[in-house]
Every structure is written in structure tokens, then in C-alpha cells.
């Protein structure tokens, strides 16, 4: 009766060793497969923070965003004027990096939006429509999306999201194909009439890298615009996000905008 036991025991032993062997080899194989990825990841980790621009600015250490309080905007257009002055934007009424829209919603639910010359001279005409139920101003600019459609469509890699979250255009590399202008759901881009390259808001990248505020924020007389870091608790932007009911433009597009609106009316798009 003891006879059949011996082969089954040895069988179990063979099986056990085979399983251990298999697991060992599988783990080695998985580890081996992960090696290149960890190498890449570690290279990225040490790569980003070490990247230093002029003036000792480290793009990897920042992440910028803007907050806009629509209840504070008075539609004076100082931001538009400051933006055009600071960034040498063409003065013709078709080219804007930022502009202000006036919303007028009447009792029938109809919405009228206008922006005469981007509101660079404010809104001098006051259409006294007695039917208007609510009306307000909405400053607009590039939303510096975390998931930017304009960057996806650029065929040459001329527009890109910088490590500090700013969507920029490489003027020397842009071929002027206008794909990005078509792709932007917020109408924030235009083709520069002289250079024939795509242009857009840069969050005044040359200013924020030197510790200054973007020109539109500097010029806003009512602090309707707030600028700061998303990832720092002590940033004025973080306070803005905590203290207000925040909305973003076209959230259903999953573009993840980094321009946050406080008290945003449901009619705004």
C-alpha cells in the first residue's frame, strides 16, 4: 500500500520546485521589463527641476493659473490696453490676447454678447434696453488648458505646454498652418498679420519668470483678476479658489482650463 506514495511525493516536489522557479523567473522578467521605464522616470525626475531659465527661474517648481471674478469686472478694458502695450499685439480690432465681453440676458432668456474692439476703450455705448434682466462683463483670455487641444493638433511641435503649465507658441518654429486656431474652443488664438505665426496669451511669461505679475493683472483696477500658483497653499490664487464658487469655461470639453472664474453666470460660454 505504501508503493504508490513514493511517485506522488516526488511529483509534488517536482511541482513545487517548478512553481517556485516559475514565480522567480516571472518576477525577474517583470523587473527586467520595468528597468527602462524606471530609468526614464528617474531621468525625468532629475531633469525637470534642474532646468533653469535666465534669472534663475526654474520652470519645474511652478504651476501657474489665473482667477477672474466676474462680479468685480467693471468693463474698463485697462487689461486689454495693458496686454496690447506689453506684448506688442497689433492694434487692429481683430487681434486680442485678452478681451472683455459684455453679457446682457433679457427676461425672455435671450443672451446678447458684444465686445466692441475687445473693449479696449471700455463700453462707451450704453444700450438702454429695458428688457435686460441681468448684465455683466466677462474678461476672456487663453485658458492655458491642462489638456490643450491646440497642442494636440500642432503638426510641428511649435505650440506646447511648458513644465509650469503655460501654453506657449514657439514663434521661430510655427509654420502658420492655423490648425491650433481652429482647434481652440475659446477663440483665444490668432494669426499675427506680420509674422504669419500663431499668437496667444502667454500669461506674460517674460514677466512671471522675473517675479512680476502679468500686465492685465497689474492693470486691473478692481482686482477682478488674480494670478498665482495652483500648487502652493499660500498663493493668492489658492485663497481665491477657496473663497469663491468656481466655474470654468466649457467644462464638458475636458480641456481642464487653468483660468478659474468666480461667480460665473450659467449663460457664459
Amino acid at each position, binding site marked *: 500500500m505504501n508503493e504508490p506514495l513514493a511517485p506522488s511525493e516526488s511529483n509534488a516536489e517536482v511541482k513545487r520546485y517548478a512553481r517556485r522557479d516559475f514565480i522567480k523567473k516571472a518576477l525577474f522578467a517583470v523587473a527586467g521589463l520595468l528597468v527602462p521605464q524606471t530609468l526614464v522616470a528617474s531621468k525625468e525626475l532629475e*531633469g*525637470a527641476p534642474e*532646468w533653469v*531659465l*535666465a*534669472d534663475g*527661474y526654474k*520652470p519645474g517648481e511652478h504651476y501657474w493659473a489665473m482667477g477672474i471674478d466676474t*462680479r*468685480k*469686472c*467693471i*468693463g*474698463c*478694458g*485697462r487689461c486689454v490696453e*495693458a496686454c496690447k*502695450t*506689453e*506684448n506688442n499685439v497689433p492694434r487692429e480690432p481683430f487681434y486680442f490676447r485678452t478681451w472683455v465681453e*459684455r*453679457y*446682457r440676458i433679457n427676461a425672455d432668456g435671450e443672451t446678447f454678447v458684444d465686445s466692441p474692439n475687445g473693449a479696449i*476703450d*471700455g*463700453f*462707451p455705448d*450704453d444700450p*438702454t434696453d429695458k428688457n*435686460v434682466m441681468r*448684465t*455683466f*462683463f466677462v474678461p476672456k483670455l487663453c485658458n492655458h488648458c491642462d489638456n490643450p487641444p491646440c497642442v494636440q493638433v500642432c503638426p510641428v*511641435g*511649435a*505650440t*506646447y*505646454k*511648458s*513644465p509650469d503649465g503655460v501654453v*506657449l507658441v*514657439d*514663434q*521661430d*518654429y510655427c509654420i502658420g498652418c492655423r490648425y491650433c486656431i481652429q482647434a481652440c474652443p475659446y477663440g483665444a488664438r490668432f494669426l499675427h498679420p506680420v509674422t504669419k505665426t500663431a499668437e496667444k496669451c*502667454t500669461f506674460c*511669461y*517674460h*514677466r512671471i*519668470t*522675473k517675479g*512680476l*505679475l502679468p*500686465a492685465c493683472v*497689474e*492693470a486691473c*483696477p*478692481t*482686482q477682478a483678476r488674480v494670478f498665482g500658483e495652483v500648487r502652493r497653499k499660500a498663493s493668492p490664487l489658492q485663497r481665491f479658489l477657496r473663497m469663491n464658487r468656481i466655474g470654468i469655461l466649457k467644462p464638458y470639453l475636458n480641456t481642464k482650463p487653468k483660468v478659474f472664474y468666480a461667480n460665473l453666470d450659467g449663460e457664459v460660454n
Partner: protein
Amino acid sequence: MPDVDWNSKLAGLRNRIPEQIKRLVIVLAVVIVAFVPARRLLVPADFGEHGHYRTSALDDAAAMPLVYAGQVVCNDCHDDIVDLKGHGYHVNLSCEICHGAALGHTENPDSIIPPAPRDRGYCPICHEYNESRPTGFPQILSVSHNPLKPCISCHNPHDPVPPETPKECTACHAAIAHSKEASHHVYLECTRCHDAPAEHRVAPREHRPSKPTTREFCGECHARDAESDPDIPRVDLETHGERYVCWQCHYPHNPEAK
């Protein structure tokens, strides 16, 4: 294992490939050989180091010239105005909102002087009534709000407190005050032409204020030889309606002359 004659097999295979395929392969090889150096030549050296873009593009973006100096720099020299502004409603306004971009001024303070808007056109950009502006923001209708006065004659823009309005006369004579506000005589105090005794306020009809009784009174400003602003219209008192006192023909609270 049967012995395989690889050489003859390969030769057979080579013979079986059609001529056009062979040529295509040659063309493809040439294209690939040309592509590698061409790509190296055309793609910038720093492309793709941190992402699908040129690394130096970020330096280009950061190297754009500044135009606005920023509020902090103004405080370094103009601390007196900053102190004054710090107590007023305009505390949060950056200097460059009204005075324009001033980086040039910070570099050459003596040769580049930023402009200061002194006319009526500038303040209404923010303070003209507009129904879309938020409730509570101070707004005026500039057609009826002292239309010929520059804002700065009553409001200090660095500390824009609304001035005490002279209620003494306007409390009763509001219609006259309003027409005077819209006229060229806007700067004239009521007492420039009227001597109002103190009792006039208590018993206005018994103690009436005086009116100018002579043509020479208006001539103090409007005569040909009067020592007054050259923009003021002049008349020859000798020949111009000599039988009347001026205000019998010209309504002094809104004189028609432009």
C-alpha cells in the same frame, strides 16, 4: 536533418522577386538613407529634450522685453504719493493704470516722464454709468456731472474722496446750479456776482442778494482791456448795447457764448 543548399535557395528566391519590387526597394533604401541626415539637419538639436518642443523656445518666451515696470518699483521713489494713495479708495490701483507703462521712466527718471491724464475723458472709462457694471461701484453720468470741469478740479485722483458739495446756495437754487454746472461760468462761485446777506437764509424775500448793477462788473472779465484769461470772449463796452446792463440780455447762469 537533410542537408539544405542555402545558396541555391537564395538564388531561387532572388530570381522570383519581380524587377519592379527590387527597384522599389532601392528607392526606399535611398529615401531612408537621405532621411536620417535630413532629419538631423532640420530638427533643432534641443528639440524633444523636455517634451515635444524646442527647449530654447522657453528661453525665447522668457526673454521678451518688459514694458510695464510693476507697482513695487514705483513705491521706491514716490513713497509720498503711495502713502496718500494707501489711505484712499484707489489704494489697490497700480500707478501704471492711469500713468501708462513706465519701465522707461524707471530706467531714465529724468528724461522719460509718464503722462498724467488731466482731462475729463479718462476717469469716465471706469466711472461712467454703465448698467453692466457691478452694483455699488461709484459711477456718474458725465453729461450732467459738472460737464465742463476736469475731474481733478474737485477729486484728487490719489485720494478720490467726493468733495463736500457747496449746499449753501444749491439747496434752494438747484435749477440755477444745474444750468451753471453745464455752462462756461461753472467755476464762478455764486458770491462772485451776488452779495448774499446772512439774513437771506432766514428770510430770503426780505433780504435779497445783490445783482451786478453796472456794465463794468461784467467788464472785469469781458472788456477788451480786462486782465483775464485770453479764451474769455471780449466785447467793446463803449459800443456793445450801451443802454443795458449785461444780464438784461445775456443769462449769466448759462451764457450762450461758446
